[in-house]
């Protein structure tokens, strides 16, 4: 045994093994994005949240295909039909028991009995109401359905007008999920421009901007949203209302982003790479767009993801109070308008189902955003 083989160990000092050193060196060669991805991969909750978010948007994109019926398709024979359970048996495959309607003469209400005599088999790729897939391709194929208009399938029950809740929730995801996305996007555009320029220029621009943010932030969010939404004229077409609500939601949203970005940029402004760019003759526009915004991009994404839950919750709260979207638009909040009344909740509790979807979407975004937040600063050791 030679001397060189032996480690000379000082107490308390760890000698890194060759692998760790190599690993360390490989880490230095990685780009910022690769580092973030490595860190994000380690958060299981974040991955799960991210996958769920992706699933939600896929559902929204193919909503018309996944929903057995159209959002406004009514089955007047089946008002307030209860949810039907999917069953499986060898011969028929997946099926539901047909609903039999009897009429209560005293309360004048329909009573539904699930009869095990008639089985309504679930058929796949059936032809029903035509729609445009992704808004482009005209088709009438739906993923599943009964294929028999006498026995519709209501997986989550039907509402006051005999419309399938499952279809409506699926289709409603389009509004609920895009309104947040659009609202966040608008906040991002305004917030990035305001925040970055406020931090970069400083002085009077910064002062005015900060005052403005302070005034807007002095308002409590929901009452301010309520007041602004109440100002939308009743006779406006639904699309205009939809767009206005996104604008209203981002009216407060951008201030958060602008504040945070300003702080980051104030710190980055003093960094050497900005000075280098200035010395190399880059103008302000180039420095902001090519150097500052990419450096804070990770944070922009994190803030955007964490802003989504608030937007989704706000849309549902506003619509629930009849101040947001209104029929004929379908969103989760609009669907919950049907469940305002205690008697309705008592007799038809399935009308609360949209709330489960709201919570699931918000939960997914929270997990996802949380994972991203930890990953966004890849240079910190943890």
């Amino acid at each position: 045994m030679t001397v060189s083989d032996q480690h000379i160990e000082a107490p308390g000092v760890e000698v890194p093994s060759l692998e760790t050193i190599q690993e360390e060196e490989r880490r230095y060669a990685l780009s910022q994005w690769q580092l973030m991805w490595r860190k994000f991969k380690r958060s299981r909750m974040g991955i799960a949240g991210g996958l769920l978010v992706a699933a939600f948007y896929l559902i929204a994109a193919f909503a018309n295909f996944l929903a057995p019926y159209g959002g406004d398709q009514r089955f007047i024979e089946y008002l307030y039909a209860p949810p039907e359970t999917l069953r499986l048996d060898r011969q028929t495959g997946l099926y539901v028991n047909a609903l039999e309607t009897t009429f209560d003469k005293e309360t004048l209400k329909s009573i539904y009995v699930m009869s095990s005599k008639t089985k309504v088999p679930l058929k796949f790729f059936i032809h029903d109401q035509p729609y445009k897939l992704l808004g482009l391709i005209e088709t009438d194929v739906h993923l599943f359905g009964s294929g028999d208009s006498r026995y519709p399938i209501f997986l989550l029950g039907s509402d006051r007008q005999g419309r399938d809740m499952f279809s409506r929730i699926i289709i409603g995801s389009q509004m609920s999920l895009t309104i947040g996305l659009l609202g966040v996007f608008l906040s991002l555009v305004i917030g990035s421009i305001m925040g970055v320029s406020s931090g970069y220029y400083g002085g009077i621009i910064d002062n005015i901007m900060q005052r403005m943010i302070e005034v807007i932030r002095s308002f409590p969010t929901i009452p301010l949203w309520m007041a602004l939404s109440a100002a939308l004229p009743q006779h406006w077409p639904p699309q205009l209302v939809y767009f206005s609500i996104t604008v209203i939601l981002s009216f407060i949203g951008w201030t958060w982003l602008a504040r945070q970005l300003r702080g980051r940029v104030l710190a980055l402004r003093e960094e050497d790479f900005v000075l280098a760019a200035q010395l190399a003759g880059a103008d302000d526009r180039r420095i902001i767009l090519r150097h500052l915004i990419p450096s804070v991009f990770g944070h922009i994404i994190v803030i955007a993801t964490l802003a989504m839950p608030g937007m989704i919750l706000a849309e549902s709260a506003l619509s629930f109070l009849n101040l947001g979207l209104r029929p004929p638009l379908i969103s989760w909040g609009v669907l919950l308008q049907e469940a305002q009344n205690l008697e309705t909740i008592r007799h038809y509790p399935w009308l609360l189902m949209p709330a489960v979807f709201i919570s699931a979407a918000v939960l997914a975004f929270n997990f996802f955003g949380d994972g991203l937040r930890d990953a966004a600063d890849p240079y910190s050791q943890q």
Partner: protein
Amino acid sequence: MLAFILRRLVGMIPTLFLVSVLTFIIIQLPPGDFMSSLAANVGTSGSSMDEATVQNLRHQYGLDQPAYMQYIKWIAGFPRADFGYSLDWKRPVKDLIMGRLGMTLLLSLISLVIMWCVALPIGIYSATHQYSLSDNVLTLLGFLGLSVPDFLLGLVYMAIGIFVFNVSVTGLFSQDMETAPWSPQKVMDLANHLFWPALILGAAGMAQLIRIMRGSLLETLGQQFITTARAKGLKEQIVINKYAVRVAINPLISVMGMQLPNLISGATVLGIVLSLPTIGPLFYRALLSQDMYLAGTMLLFISLMLMLGNLLADIALAWVDPRIRLE
């Protein structure tokens, strides 16, 4: 300290002025005014108001004056505690909102207290038992609290109250207590009616607090003075409660300034759902009927509460953490 508070209070005046202007603009945004929505309402109920009556009423209440004159008249009354006249209720705004503002504040404060009492021990527990099963379960529960809309929790609470326990949980008093004079029983009744709404209101904030406390305590526990304390042979109990928690609690206090507005916002929606005598239902109705002085004054007062809440959080932070310098 006093100088800092004074300076902050004075600094609030221009912000408050701008807020009041913006409030007035927002409240004026809907097309038409109270009289036109009144006329429309009367129209739908069968009878009708002729144009002359509408004009007369408009003149009587000063609605025919230019907007800036209306604003000046409204804001000039504030020093005299005259906040205008509610056209819908035919009463001065002041009489309508004072009790309700107090209730809103009371509900939010109780909610804040419950939030802290629950979140602090759970946060400490989670941090000291990191990655254990109970930590994971608590984290998941926290996220759930963050994700369920509070109006839904309110609805479910109301439904459970009625259909399971057969008690009406709306309002702040039981029926027989409503008109009774103040007594210990009535206070208990009020506390009973406030507890659950306050808990529901605090659900989202609680989850946030638990997370922050957990993260902050974990970070603090890794610092050298903790190692020193342990090396001195202090009991773990004391190391955590007297050393770590006192430092780790700072981020929570600065978050408090952000949570108060959320509570007040949430109280608005929850108040509407549970028909509590908070500003929520009144504000909602005022918005729909375009009762502008009522809606405007309430919006302004909520904003004021929010600003004061932020100031209080700053003061608390400076008081707890001597490292923070007031400027």
